[in-house]
C-alpha cells in the first residue's frame, strides 16, 4: 500500500478537528475530485501555536494534512507562506499522479494565512 508514514497518519490523524476561536481559517478544494480541507490556526506573535484540519478526502490528502499540521507548528506564518510546494511534495514522497491530493492541505493553510491562491 502507501508508504508507512502516510498509512500511519491516515489511520491515526494528528490535529484533526476545528479550533473554536481561530486567528486564521481557510479551506481549499481539490480541483480533480472536489475533496475539501479546512485549516484553522491560532498564533502568538506570528508563530503558529495550534493548528487543526478538517474535511473529507482520500488517504493521501488526509495524511498530508496531518503531516503538514505537525510540520508547521512553531513556524512563523511568513515561513509557511514561503513554503515551497515541491519541498512539501518531496517530504510526503512523490506519489505519482497524486500531487493534487498532496497539495490540498498546503493550499488550504496558505489561504487561511491570507495568501491569494487563484484556484
Amino acid at each position, binding site marked *: 500500500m502507501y508508504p508507512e508514514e502516510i498509512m500511519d497518519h491516515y489511520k491515526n490523524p494528528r490535529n484533526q478537528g476545528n479550533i473554536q476561536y481561530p486567528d486564521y481559517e481557510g479551506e481549499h478544494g481539490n480541483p480533480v475530485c472536489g475533496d475539501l480541507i479546512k485549516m484553522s490556526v491560532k498564533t502568538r506573535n506570528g508563530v503558529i501555536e495550534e493548528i487543526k484540519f478538517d474535511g473529507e478526502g*482520500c488517504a493521501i490528502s488526509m495524511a498530508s494534512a496531518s503531516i503538514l499540521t505537525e510540520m508547521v507548528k512553531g513556524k512563523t506564518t511568513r515561513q509557511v507562506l514561503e513554503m515551497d510546494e515541491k519541498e512539501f511534495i518531496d517530504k510526503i514522497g512523490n506519489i505519482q499522479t497524486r500531487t493534487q491530493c498532496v497539495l490540498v492541505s498546503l493550499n488550504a493553510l496558505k489561504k487561511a494565512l491570507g495568501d491569494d491562491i487563484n484556484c
Partner: protein
Amino acid sequence: MDVETIRKDFPILNKKINGYPLIYFDNTATTQKPRQVIQAISDFYEKYNANIHRGVHRLSQEASEIYEQAHEKTAKFINSDWREVIFTKNTTESINLVAHSLDFNKGDEIVISIMEHHSNMVPWQELVKEKGIVLKIVDVKEDGSLDMEDLKSKIGKKTKLVSITHVSNVLGAVNPVKEICKLAHENQAYCLIDGAQSAPHIKVDMKRIGCDFFAFSAHKMLGPTGMGVLYGTKQALSEMGPFLTGGDMIKKVTSKEASWNDLPWKFEAGTPNIAGAAGFSAALDYLTSIGMEKIDKYERDLAKYAIERIKDAHIYGPDDRAGIISFNLKKIHAHDVAYFLDKKGIAVRSGNHCAQPLMTKMGILGTVRASFYVYNTKKEIDFMIENLDEIRRNL
C-alpha cells in the same frame, strides 16, 4: 461472441501497466481501438488524403466518397437517413449545436434530469442566462432510476425541449426514451436524447425511439477521438439556423450575404475530420459485424457477474443496468481504490464522472466506476475483485 478473437484485434491490450497486463475498465470515458480502425485512418492518409466537396480532381472525389459513406453508414447504424446525420467533434458539440441553433425564447422551458452529464446540463444553464429560458430538473428515485412521475409533472405547455440521457454514465440506468419522447411530443416539445452511453452498447433505432435529436461520440464506440454525431429529423433541422458559419456550409455567397447549403452540410462548417470519418466507418463495421444485441447482452452479463462478487461495497444505480458499475468500498476514498487498482494494471475511473449535481444529490464526493466493453472478460473482473479485497484488507 468470441471474445478471445476480438481481443486479438486490440493492440493496446498487449500493453503492460506496472508490470501487469492492462485491464481496461474505463470504457465509459473512451474505448480502445481495434487495428481495423487504426488501419482505416492510416489508409486514408496514405491513399486518399484530399479535401472534400470542392475538388474536381480524382483524389478529392475519393475523399468525398469516404466522408459521405461514413454519413450513410452512421444513418444505417441508427436507422435514419444520411441527410439527418451531422458530424461534429463530440457529444458535447452536438448538444451545443442544438442549444445554439434551435429557436429558444424567453420563458421557454427545458426539461433535463439530475443524472445528466455536465454536457447535457451546462449548455442549458447558459441559455437561462442568455435567453431567459426556464430550466426544470427531473429527480431520480431512491434506486437511481429516473423518476417518471416527476418528469410527467415537469413537462407542460411551455416546454420547448426535453433533453435526457439514454444511459446514465454514472448509474448505468437505462431510461425509457421512447416514452419520454412521446410525452414531449404530446406537449409539442422537441426531444433530445444524449446517446453517448447508449449508441456504443445497445441497438439504437431513431424511428423506434422517435426523438427529434440524438447525440453521440465515435470515440466511445471504438472510433477515433474528435468525431461526434448529431442526428436530427429533417423537419427539426430545417427549422434551425446554422451553428458555425464559413466554408462548406454555404450554397451561394455574395460580398454581402450567403445562403445555406442542404442538409447535413449546412451544419458542417469548415474542413471536417475526414480521417476521423474513415475511422468511424471502420468502427461501425466492426460493431455491426459482432451485432449490437450480442454486445448489449454480453456487457450486462459482465456487470451482473461483477455486482454479485463485489463484497462490502455500496453499489449505486438500479438493478436493470447497462455495463457500468459505480461503487464505493465502505469508508475508502475512490481515488485510493483507483490508485491501487492501477498498480495492478487495472484502469478504472474515480471521482464525480462529470456529474457533480448527481453526486451532491446522492450525498457523496465520488465513486469508483468500472465500465465494460466487448474485449473485457470475467477473468479480468475476478482479478479486480481479488485486488479490491486486498485494498479493503490493507487500507
